[in-house]
């Protein structure tokens, strides 16, 4: 199969040889970057720049040339608040509700997911039968599309669903899971963990497998308890992997959208409306399309994420240096 590609490869090699001979090895790096960079600039970076233009213009026109300049009014309006802890006191209360929902969602989702993923990784790292199968079992939900995840669980949790049937047969009151705000929030967090845990489990599993076995054997000789082994050996040696997992989980957690939108629609009321849903609905989902407000919110979201990521790397670097 690869041999078939040989003539193509020889053809592709020609520009690289030319650049390498005429302009030096350094310039070939740019040639390697070129195709990716071209598409990246056009379809990712340029839209981000355009997003800045949207953020500083108002009205509901879609084309930039039809949109009047409003300066930083969109940002100002979003941030106008008497007390940021109380969304009801803010000019755009829905934005702040979404912000706080997202904060709580990320705290629980990332926190519980990383712990559960770590526990699962440790279990899978033991000498067990059919390890490959079990690894697959935990990874499987990662492959499902967000809409499918939402539907699967909606079907189980609906008023006449499987869970309520189970509760009733055990003699409990049935609960309208997605109508009670706290339960809706709980299940939103739960399905998000359910869907993504497998990915992080595998990353952590790899980190665990990289820890040399003889360290544990030495600890076993000293009759160290399993808990002590975990605290003193596993955790410190795993911390670089844990950092990757935390950074990725945090970024993806803040950006959660489709699965919750399809699951609860952000309800009841605004109990599970996350920041991405706010951006989507404001700019795209419902009328009037306030693209400017959505773009401003998106930019603030990205800045917060960049700050959080930088913070995590900085903390890690300090740890490593110290």
């Amino acid at each position, binding site marked *: 199969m690869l041999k*078939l590609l040989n003539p193509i490869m020889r053809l592709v090699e020609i520009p690289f040889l030319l650049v390498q001979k005429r302009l030096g090895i350094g310039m070939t790096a740019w040639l390697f970057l070129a195709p990716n960079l071209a598409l990246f600039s056009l379809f990712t970076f340029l839209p981000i720049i355009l997003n800045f233009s949207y953020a500083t213009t*108002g009205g509901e026109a879609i084309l930039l040339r039809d949109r009047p300049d409003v300066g930083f009014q969109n940002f100002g309006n979003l941030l106008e608040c008497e007390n940021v802890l109380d969304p009801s006191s803010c000019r755009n209360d829905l934005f702040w509700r979404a912000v706080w929902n997202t904060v709580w969602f990320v705290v629980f989702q990332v926190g519980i997911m990383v712990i559960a993923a770590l526990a699962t990784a440790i279990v899978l790292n033991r000498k067990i039968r059919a390890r490959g199968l079990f690894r697959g079992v935990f990874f499987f939900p990662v492959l499902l599309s967000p809409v499918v995840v939402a539907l699967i669980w909606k079907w189980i949790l609906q008023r006449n669903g499987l869970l309520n049937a189970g509760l009733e047969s055990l003699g409990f009151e049935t609960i309208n899971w997605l109508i009670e705000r706290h339960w809706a929030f709980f299940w939103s967090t739960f399905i998000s963990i359910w869907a993504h845990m497998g990915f992080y489990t595998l990353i952590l599993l790899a980190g665990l497998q990289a820890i040399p076995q003889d360290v544990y054997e030495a600890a076993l000789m000293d009759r160290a308890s399993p808990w002590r082994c975990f605290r003193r050996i596993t955790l410190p040696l795993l911390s670089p992997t844990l950092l990757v997992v935390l950074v990725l989980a945090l970024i993806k957690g803040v950006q959660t959208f489709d699965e919750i939108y399809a699951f609860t*629609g952000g309800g009841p009321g605004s109990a599970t409306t996350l920041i991405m849903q706010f951006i989507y609905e404001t700019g795209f989902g419902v*009328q009037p399309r306030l693209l400017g407000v959505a773009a401003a919110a998106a930019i603030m979201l990205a800045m917060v994420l960049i700050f959080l990521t930088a913070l995590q790397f900085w903390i890690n670097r300090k740890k490593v240096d110290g």
Partner: protein
Amino acid sequence: MKYTRLIGAFMLSAAFTAPAAAQEIRFMCNDEPFCKVLDDLFTGFEAENPGVDVVTDIVSYDVVLKNLPVQLAAGEGPDMARVTDLGGLNEYYIDLAPYVDRGYWEDSFGDTLDWYRVGADDDGIYGMHGDFTITGAYINKTLFDQAGVEIPSADADWDTWAQAATAVAEATGIEAAMAMDRSGHRIAGPAISYGARIFDENGEPILVDDAFQEYVQKFVDWNNDGVMLRDVWAGAGGGSYRDAGAEFINGTLAYLFSGSWQTLNFDQKIGDLFDWQVVGSPCGAGGCSGMPGGSGIVGFKHTKHPELVAKLIDYLAQQDVYAELTSRTRSVPAHYGVAAAGVDYQDVSAPAAAALNAWGAQVEKLSPIAFAYQGYKNNRAMFNITVQRVTQAVVGEYSVDEAMERARDDLATVLAETAK
């Protein structure tokens, strides 16, 4: 070699290159059964106009609502479409007036033509209203009979209906007495019946007034007392649509406030499980009005064949073609001629025929405010504000007063933004 051939074929595959038929008209349509009938009617037009190929693209409602406007703004999109945001997309419509018989159109469609226009001084003909819908209520007659509760009279108000439905629910042990679709369009009719004006004296939108708030207060209370099925409104956030059609079909609701479009669905799904009946809109100080609505067929300016598109829409608007459309889609006609002649719904069951007739009788009860609201270009924004804020009052994030105050602010923001 085999692989390269395969890759070559793959690259050339029709899917990757836009086909360019000489006179192809792309029609974007939502709601499969309705679109299939239209597509079938197009064949008549294709026969009259050789070389013309009308392609119907069936898409989800979200595409028409959210994506189509963006496509149109970018100069993309289909040549014609079936839309529900009638006034909002006006800037992209072809004015059919130069191509059609104005007299015939005005005689046949009258008021609904206004819904596609932007202002009072606009006399363009932009779209053909394909089906006329009207909001109102259905009841599960069998449950009323079982409970021995008398069905309230045609001029009963919401309180009377709520009492009767609650009595039925208590006697029969069903989940909830009533439900209303989660939609700003649905709740508008009852609010208008309670005296809400929606617009001020100058015709500027105000949305919330005392009467509107009075109805919202009742509605919120019913949700919290268990009279209304809480799942529908509390079960979602933002502007998402939810309905309680499934609950009604299951026989777990005595009363459902929805609209005429459910007729065919109920007829098919309920079958003879129970008897159901259309009871229209309860009355109040402002009358017994539902909201009119429906979708229309429009052509877009960017098409390469404006004349052909106009001709096609005009073809559909002819009385015989329109009558066939109405009859086969089991809809209420927006064409006066067809309505006057009476529609012969083919192979429709007795309950469905009764329901369609009952809906027809509701049309005359529609308030002028309801017509004005349906024709107002920013009405979708106002529907969304209503849904969002009333839901917050239902789930207790705000009191009704606060929620309505927010709704007023939202409307002010919308008006300021759309004025830009």
